[in-house]
């Protein structure tokens, strides 16, 4: 059911995009210096010769990749990372063509060359690594708990006998059943319904990925708090088609600079309404303990 809704939203957005042609990439920010041309025949050289980079981002995920209906521009953390990469290649953060990449089409988009990079809240895992290459980790999401401000629940170990809400058919449901088997898990059609039930005093906690919970918390900061840290690890990486080591290297260098210079925290602060943590370490296997 949820997939259909997403598809419909996708179709509507695609239609809207087709109806109004995208504005040309601005040249306002072209103050930096372009990097030297890469070797002939590489993906990076192709990007350089084209004069812009094609990036797949989400259009419907708040804080990461969201199409602003008034400005008709995509905004978010993923988009800002894309701009940093464009600035590094061309000296111009706006030399980007955005394409909507939903979870279903983003890997095919890379494989058939529709996009050069995918920056769309994509969790790195071994299965996906068989299909595409990934940059180092640029963001670390994870499942967490949203509870009322006065709640005594401080971690996933405090959930025995507690009523915990999440969405039907989510990985969050499977995780919470595994990690807090004594919790009374109640399943709603969506996360908004679960938060409403908690607001009515019917739930002790709502659980899913922290970047979704942060959105609810930011809307009503006097009511809710996030507790328990991240008890699952969802390391996000930038996807690149297989066989382009020079592009992976270039992206990793941009990410390393972001993390080192403090710019990473700046982008976090700009998009996500919580205190920025330290940037994640590079290696996803180290993060998830594989």
């Amino acid at each position, binding site marked *: *059911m949820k997939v259909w809704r997403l598809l419909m939203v996708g179709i509507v957005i695609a239609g809207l995009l087709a109806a109004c042609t995208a504005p040309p990439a601005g040249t306002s920010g072209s103050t930096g210096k372009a990097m030297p041309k890469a070797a002939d025949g590489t993906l990076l050289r192709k990007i350089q010769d084209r004069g812009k980079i094609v990036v797949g981002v989400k259009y419907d995920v708040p804080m990461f990749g969201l199409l602003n209906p008034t400005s008709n521009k995509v905004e978010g953390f993923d988009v800002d990372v894309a701009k940093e990469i464009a600035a590094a290649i061309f000296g111009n953060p706006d030399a980007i063509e955005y394409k909507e990449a939903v979870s279903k089409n983003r890997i095919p988009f890379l494989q058939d060359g529709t996009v050069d990079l995918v920056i769309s809240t994509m969790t790195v895992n071994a299965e996906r690594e068989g299909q595409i290459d990934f940059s180092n980790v640029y963001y670390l999401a994870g499942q967490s708990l949203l509870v009322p401000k006065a709640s005594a629940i401080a971690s996933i170990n405090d959930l025995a006998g507690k009523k915990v809400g999440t969405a*039907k*058919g*989510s990985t969050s*449901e*499977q995780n919470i059943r595994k990690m807090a088997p004594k919790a009374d898990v*109640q*399943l*709603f*059609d969506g996360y908004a*319904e679960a938060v*409403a*039930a908690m*607001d*009515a*005093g*019917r739930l002790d906690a709502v659980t899913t990925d922290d970047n979704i919970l942060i959105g609810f918390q930011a809307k009503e900061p006097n009511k809710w708090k996030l507790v328990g840290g991240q008890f699952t690890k969802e390391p996000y990486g930038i996807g690149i088609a297989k066989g382009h080591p020079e592009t992976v290297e270039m992206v990793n260098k941009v990410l390393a600079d972001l993390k080192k210079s403090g710019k990473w925290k700046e982008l976090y602060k700009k998009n996500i309404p919580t205190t920025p943590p330290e940037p994640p370490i590079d290696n996803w296997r180290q993060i998830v303990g594989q």
Partner: protein
Amino acid sequence: MNAESWNLLLRIGLITTAGLSIAAGLISLVLGTVIGIFRVSPVGPLRVLASGYVEFFRNIPLLICLAFIFYGLPKAGITFPIFEAGVIGLSVYTAAFVAEVVRAGLQSIGHGQIEAGRALGLSYIQMLRLVLLPQVFGMVIPPLGTVFIALVKNTSVASAIVVPELMYQAEVIAGRYFYPNVFLIAGFMYLIITLPLALLVNVMEKRSQIGHRR
């Protein structure tokens, strides 16, 4: 796929759906009969009250009724447990339809009988109990049957307020095991409840007709 936990979930669902139907059926029968009587009562304020009730609950979606009890009432300090919230929502909603059936039954009885009852010195309550209601319940079995079959199917709406009935379990299974055919199975399980109910209504209808012919 774990067939065992599937089975268990569907069985819990079937029992919960049956429980919801029976509890809400009994409560709405009693409540609806009282409201139906009020609608044709000689006391004006009772008529107004009953009409207001029927028109309100008959003309709002059941989902809104359930959501109000589940999400809204707790804000006023009234929190019913999940199953009870489902029973109450379904009962007050279905009672409006029962009341209309009972009212129609009462109004179809000839005025002569009421006059005859008055002539015999029966009070209004006695008249209802001894003369009107026994006839009404014979007559209204078919429309009441329709109301209760609709009630059984309406219990599926309670899945939205996490009552663990059949529809809820089917959605959980579909999401967890990526098995959408479970809705087909759930559909057949509703028939397990509704078909015997329909048969029962038919049998009762025949019996009451025989009674009339005598």
